[in-house]
């Protein structure tokens, strides 16, 4: 069980003028028992057109494995500066990752989507494991991932 408090230190793309208001958001990701080693997870946000806006969290510290988080890697070119200071340990099968961040109000109900890419050693790469629109109404509603994530929810 991981509980972390991190101030959102997103890239300039997310710190647009007028986004001064922010609130703490808790992201809870629970993995299923997939029977493999710890999973690498990349949590990031795209805008309405699908363009990469910035990263929220990277679970997994060895950058040489980031290429298996296929979509995140393509969007960022594998730039580790994107996850500087917001990187933690990989998440074991059946475990829960809980992160609390200060997210800008303007990210909600504005067409932004939160994505999670997942990868496990010697198992399939799972880009876009989870893709949920960021809306105030959707907060607290758990969704299921495609392969490794049993449930994901964001709470405000």
């Amino acid at each position: 069980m991981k509980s972390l408090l991190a101030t959102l230190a997103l890239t300039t793309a997310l710190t647009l003028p007028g986004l001064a208001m922010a609130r703490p958001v808790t992201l809870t990701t629970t993995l299923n028992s997939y029977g493999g080693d710890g999973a690498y997870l990349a949590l990031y946000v795209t805008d309405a057109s699908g363009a990469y806006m910035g990263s929220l969290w990277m679970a997994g510290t060895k950058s040489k494995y980031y290429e298996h988080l296929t979509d995140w890697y393509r969007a960022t070119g594998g730039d580790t500066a994107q996850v500087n200071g917001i990187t933690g340990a990989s998440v074991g099968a059946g475990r829960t990752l809980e992160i609390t961040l200060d997210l800008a109000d303007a990210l909600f109900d504005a067409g932004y989507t939160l994505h999670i890419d997942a990868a496990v050693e010697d198992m399939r790469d799972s880009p876009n494991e989870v893709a949920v629109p960021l809306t105030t109404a959707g907060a607290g509603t758990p969704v299921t991932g495609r392969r490794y994530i049993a449930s994901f929810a964001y709470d405000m």
Partner: protein
Amino acid sequence: MIRALHRWPGLLALALVTVLSLSGAALSVFPAAERIAAPQAEAGMTVATLADRIQGAYPGVDQIRRAPSGRITAYWFDQGTPGAAVIDPATGQGAASADPNQTQRWLTNLHRSLFLGDGGRIAMAVGAAAMLGLSFSGVLLVTRRVGGWRNWFTRLRGPLAGRLHIEIARIAVVGLVLSSTTALWMTASTFDLLPGGGVPAMPVEVSGEAAFAPGQMPLLVETPVDELRELSFPYPADATDVFTLKTDQGTGYLDQGTGALLAWTDLTGWERVSETIYMLHTGQGAPTLGLVLGLMALGVPAMGVTGVVVWLAGRGGRPRIRGNQPAGRAETILLVGSEGGSTWGFAATLHAALSRAGQSVHAAPMSAFSPDRYTSARRIIVLAATYGDGDSPASAKGFLSRLATLDHAPGAPVAVLGFGDRSFPAYCAFAKAVSEAARAKGWSELLPLDTIDRQSPQDFARWGRGLGKVLGIDLELAHQPVLPATETLTLISRRDYGNEVQAPTAILRFALPKATLWQRLTGAAFARFTAGDLIGILPEGSPVPRLYSLASARRDGFVEIVVKKQPGGLCSGQLTALEPGQTVTAFLRRNPGFQPGRGKAPLILIGAGTGIGPLAGFVRGNSRRRPIHLFFGMRHPDSDFLYGEEMPVWQDEGHLVQLVTAVSRGARPHYVQDALRNEAAEVARLIKDGARVLVCGGRDMAAGVADALADILAPTGLSPAALKAEGRYVEDVY
């Protein structure tokens, strides 16, 4: 120095390298098993065909991977449910589960990180570094011991644990160096200490079309399955996405609408090196190499055990010296050059005996030689073993160079006593070097150079009496080199010879003592012995054991020795007076240096008098009918023809090809070396054809035989010394 660098890191890292090597050896089996189990693609099959077949079987396929073993795995989604299987490339259908093997996963995590994350990875890397360091220090030690690179695979002598340690090491070291170096590289790569590669940037321009069948794409049609690493399909219903192809060569993107190659990046040099190293370490893609490395890794725990035994034996062999006097006050300085520690045992005995006789004695390693501190010294005694091919032993480092740089020799006279094994060509070579250096320096001599063969307590006691005479004291050196557990042997029969020629000799046959289960399991004591091994007899009235060569092997069912009654000899007197039913106290000492060895090469056995004992044992045990030529010297055939009754039988049975006797009493005295010269042509031919020579008997006879052989072999370009170095000429002399 190197020895300490080998010993202490070895003991410290023992647990770590044992876990590393055992888990590594277990893991080495998986690539081979996977290679055998995985359905392989037929030769020349292309990625296009493979992708076509798999897409036919699993329309929702989104990734195909090929492992270096040739195993192909496909991943797909079927109405949102993920699926995966190992694929039979002939059909595109699933053939087995794609789930990771849990045993392999557990072993892998143990092997690389002890389940401790990054801290564990660093610990295991330290283990790998220790293994590499031990390999290098071990190579230096072995090279020094065998006397150079060219003798890397030479025959070894000495205690079993030490021999096993080196036997394993000199084969396994190649694999251990490879495995540990690649392990360090992989750790560095994991911690991002090495440059990596990259994938090409996502193409901006795509056709926007979809539904071009991968089976038609030119690059996939060109690429054989053997080169495939991974093929990823575009997301369904995302026209901007692309096919991603990874091969042995690099990574590229293919347009899903046209099949055209949009971008390509070759693997970098670093990536290629890293992949080769990964293959060398894991055996993924080189399963046979993996198995070989795994086998070699199994040598590590074995070397750990034998290494600890060698270390304990060395420690146990060095006794504490009580009442050691300071160097400045001692009349007698004892300088000890010991490798394994056994020479220290002799020094302790000498120290105690001299101290009892009222002397003040200072004992120190030869490496601590500092003559200016010996202000009260009246004499200096050097006890020197030899390491390997004439090198100085561990505790004598620097002695010769320090002696050479002295302005003048020390005032107190010196006596040098060498310790060695006569079966080595460089017998007591270091002691001889010390003695010569002392003479060259003009150092006055207390006693001439003498030598002790194979820790013989008799030799040492004899030398001690000589020393006592010079010092004017009665010096009885009763040295017991860590006495093994003794057994009681009961005489069952005796045959007497030689009374008429004033050489009363007896062949004594004892019953086999009952071996305990433990002795049978470990081959200890009399549970395992062969002719040529030694038996130590403890005579009544003396703590010093006497060694005799065995004339029988365990499977003969009895213990047999040949003993000549020495004038005034305590032990030989008691033995030759022994009647059946009476007992002696004895222990067994192995003598692996004096054995005929395996193989079919002819044997030339040369012996005189009681020296016939082990040779007769070899002939008796020669059930495989190896050609044996026996040269036997006696005094008179009617009196001391030992084993004279058996010889014709052995010849009839084919155990013995040729028997040549020499008789020394008579009108024309004839010795065994004369018999050899008479057969010179035959002897030279046999030796040229690879025969082994074993000589057993008195020292003078052995010297005479060596001279005769030198003459006989001169025309062939061979020499007894060269044969000795090869291990083809061995002596057991007394």
